[in-house]
């Protein structure tokens, strides 16, 4: 590349270049010589018609069908109060200040969560030294009021699976496929 005062620039750069030459990994993309416009119009039309005849479908018929997430999917979780040692590490590391420590009737520190703030990064779950959080893959929860998203210890220890909004829906599993991208298959035994 041409640089103003090129010689000096090249000199300076060559010091680095000699020590550790940069790999030549660049290639030039030629803008393709495109054929006649009429032909390309027909090609585009044919491509569209191909998908009209043999459609691929990426979307799932939500909320009738719901995707089954992998077990490590970061969904809602609950507190196992007996396991918790009240170290408040989860409170310290929570990036969105969604967790707050409160005292339970035994005057022990326990975390409570504000689901309205939670970003599901699972830092709290991962930093907990005793695995005091029970995790699920539920994420599509809805609340009527903001106050419902603020939990107390009792609510935080309740299993979110109990009020899973996608209970009646058909559970679908993703299978990757070369031609169709995804194939959704119903999960059996649910």
């Amino acid at each position: 590349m041409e640089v103003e005062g090129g010689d000096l620039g090249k000199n300076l750069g060559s010091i680095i270049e000699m020590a550790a030459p940069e790999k030549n990994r660049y290639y030039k993309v030629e803008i393709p010589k495109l054929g006649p416009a009429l032909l390309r119009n027909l090609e585009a039309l044919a491509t569209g018609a191909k998908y009209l005849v043999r459609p691929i479908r990426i979307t799932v018929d939500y909320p009738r069908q719901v995707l089954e997430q992998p077990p490590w999917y970061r969904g809602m979780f609950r507190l196992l109060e007996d396991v918790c040692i009240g170290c408040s590490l989860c409170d310290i590391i929570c990036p969105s200040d969604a967790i707050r420590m409160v005292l339970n009737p035994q005057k022990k520190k326990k975390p409570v969560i504000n689901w309205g703030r939670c970003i599901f990064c699972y830092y709290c779950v991962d930093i907990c030294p005793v695995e005091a959080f029970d995790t699920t893959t539920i994420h599509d929860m809805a609340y009527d009021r903001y106050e419902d998203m603020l939990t107390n210890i009792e609510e935080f220890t309740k299993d979110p699976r109990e009020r899973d909004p996608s209970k009646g829906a058909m559970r679908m599993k993703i299978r990757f496929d070369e031609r169709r991208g995804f194939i959704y298959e119903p999960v059996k035994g649910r």
Partner: protein
Amino acid sequence: MMLPLVMLLKEILGFNDTIYRTVVGLGYMIIYPGLLLVVVIAALMLWAERKIVALVQLRYGPLWVSRRIGGALQGFADLIRFSFQEVIIPRRSDVIPFLLSPGLAILFSMLPIAFIPISPSIHPPLYSDLALLVVIAIISLAPIFIVIMGWASDNKFAFVGSLREALLIVSYEIPLIISIISMAVIYGSLDFYEIVERQYMLPGMILNPFAFIASFIAVLRTTSRFPFEISEAETEIVAGPYTEYSGLMFGLSMGLAYIKLYVYTLILSLVFLGGWLPLQGGEGFLLGFLAPSLVVIIKLSLLSLVAVFLRAIYGRYRLDQAIRLGWIYVLGLSIVSLIWSLALVYGGWVRWR
């Protein structure tokens, strides 16, 4: 259904011919193939467009309203929703033209139906042997109200959109008219009945393919189908002339394109696709009117489906590119079609008497 009733009334009450023609004419305009059919076809076409495009685009398309039949009632649901939404009139708008122009645009794009026959037996209310010219003349008036819409809204985006519309009208109406006229040259008539009759061997699109392509492209532009959806380009000028419209008014102005699509494809299917041919028409209401008109409607629906399918293929042209395309290629094509027609006629390949 209507026809026997009218006949019966005529017999019993002794209606004179004027009243009979008035009643049939009103039925023709309001029920079939007029307003009611237009609304039904427009709503179904809206659904078909979304469904076709969704198939190409890896998704389901409308499904929530009437799931059993694939969401086909979606268009009607939209229509109902639009009619119950609040209509907001901007304070700085020019109220009377703002409110009147969508209705007038629809009126002028529907009026040609009064001249267009869709069956060999029942004449349209306003029968004329110069119908083709009249129809083209009337429907060319509709875009003027789109320009008025943009001007009356007092919105910069609406203004830009209506200017675009005005520029595009000029550059695509002329090729449309020339290519339709070139068909009239071939048929030697401006009367729709004669036009259809003279396609008994070859439909017009084979007699003069240039005229068909030119007029189809011009129709795509006039009904703002892709790739000519320029005057209401959403990502550039919000909704063009319709930016300030809401509720039913917005529904009307958006439905306008589909109504125009219906009328134009009706004209094209008569002029290029042979109308109700191969049915010749026969006795009675069923054979004489309903069956031939259904043939016409199937033909025009096929044309409309091709037009709406293009949404899945194309983006939109830039204004200057579309104008250049119009003035060079489409106009060129239509002139070629006129020369082709003249050559056919004076070369003696087509002869009607």
